[in-house]
């Protein structure tokens, strides 16, 4: 994006729409951060705030989609401009999903507050959430700077999140086998972990969008898959 369009209004529109994406990214990042903190701190009030904030994210997504549709209708973007608009639409939908997962996490927090604590689980989840939030931050940076290398890096880091999830999965299994009273909270915690893992997948998808945006091609499917749980014959297909 070195050169400006002759029609400066086109530039303004493109900038506006991307600024909205950045704003949305920031909101999702905050939501993940706050939801995790509410889980660790068992802070019901914070959890309620996160749940309330999600409607803003949803509204923003709608706004972005409308703006993108308008931009396509009015400016007939081509080439890199077209990719920009297309990725904006996809990225906003990815971010919206991430926001939903954060909201879900906050919802489960409200339930978990009423139950026994599982030793170490919250911290593990927080580590995992931190990793994911870091990925989100990096992918947004990569998006702004059109940085393919950083995007590729984020894409690879999803592997680590997957492995964390695998570890947690086994940990929860152990807890549940030790004491059936833990099953309810472990199930909730497992869903939280799973959702964070899914958030990582969406972030990976955003990273792929960044690569597409810059190069015009999607990366080939050579990413290491860390989530082996669905292939474990003992556990059976989870998803």
């Amino acid at each position, binding site marked *: 994006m070195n050169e400006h369009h002759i029609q400066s209004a086109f530039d303004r529109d493109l900038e506006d729409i991307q600024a909205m994406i950045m704003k949305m990214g920031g909101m999702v990042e905050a939501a993940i951060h706050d939801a995790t903190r509410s889980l660790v701190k068992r802070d019901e009030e914070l959890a309620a705030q996160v749940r309330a904030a999600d409607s803003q994210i949803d509204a923003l997504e709608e706004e972005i989609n409308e703006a993108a549709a*308008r931009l396509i209708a009015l400016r007939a973007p081509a080439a890199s401009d077209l990719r920009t608009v297309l990725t904006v639409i996809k990225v906003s939908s990815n971010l919206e999903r991430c926001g939903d997962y954060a909201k879900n996490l906050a919802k489960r927090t409200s339930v978990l507050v009423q139950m026994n604590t599982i030793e170490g689980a919250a911290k593990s989840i927080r580590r995992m959430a931190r990793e994911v939030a870091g990925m989100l931050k990096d992918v947004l940076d990569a998006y702004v700077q059109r940085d393919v290398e950083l995007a590729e890096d984020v894409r690879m880091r999803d592997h680590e999140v997957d492995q964390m999830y695998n570890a947690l999965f086994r940990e929860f299994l152990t807890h549940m086998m030790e004491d059936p009273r833990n099953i309810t909270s472990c199930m909730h915690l497992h869903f939280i972990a799973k959702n964070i893992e899914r958030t990582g997948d969406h972030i990976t998808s955003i990273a792929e969008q960044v690569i597409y945006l810059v190069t015009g091609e999607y990366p080939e499917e050579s990413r290491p898959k860390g989530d082996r749980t669905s292939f474990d014959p003992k556990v059976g297909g989870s998803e």
Partner: protein
Amino acid sequence: MNDLALAAKTEAALKPKISAKGVDVYYADNHAIKNVDVNILDKTVTAFIGPSGCGKSTFLRCLNRMNDTIDIARIEGEILLDGEDIYDPKVDPVQLRAKVGMVFQKPNPFPKSIFDNVSYGPRIHGMARNKAELEEIVESALRRAALWDEVKDRLLAPGTGLSGGQQQRLCIARAVATAPEVLLMDEPCSALDPIATAQIEELIDELRQNYSLVIVTHSMQQAARVSQKTAFFHLGNLVEYGETGHIFTNPEDSRTEAYITGRIG
């Protein structure tokens, strides 16, 4: 959008620059414009779109009485500019046209120098008392038309020697030089290449700060790019008039939808 802008917008919407009420135009027996009502706002680009022969150009030419030059044209109804009926017998079309400038489809500079082209309007309207003032007007008009930097060294060169896009900007400068309040543009880019077109469109966007612009265009994309308001004409009727973004994403009338999606010509 903050409240202030909203308030300003509402006020502008209440006080249109040009207001047409029940306008009918006949060319001999041909009923070219049928009962058109439209309010054109100040500091806004309004685009007229529609298939060929739908009357959009005819209606545009009613707004500065260019149709007066056609013997067989007859107009009924009322067109108000700032609340004054421009078809009042007391109105001299020459005075009106100084207020409502026009840019035509084909760049049509006079076969004179660039300076003479721009200074012609101010000169016949007696807008400058001396040569220095005239030069000032010419420079500011050329600057407004984003042409000054390209021609400042050759103001005495013939205007017809410029490129097509420059010629059209020269015509815009010529229209701007008479200090109009409204600028009418009749397919200003149809004879230009895409780059020149983009430059004119950018210019139109800048001119919006100071003028009310009405542009007739065959290119729906152009209407989408430059205008804030769009009016769709079909067979002499004003089918739909509204926010450009709205018209191009979610038109109300099925004929508008059919036209902008390329289903009727």
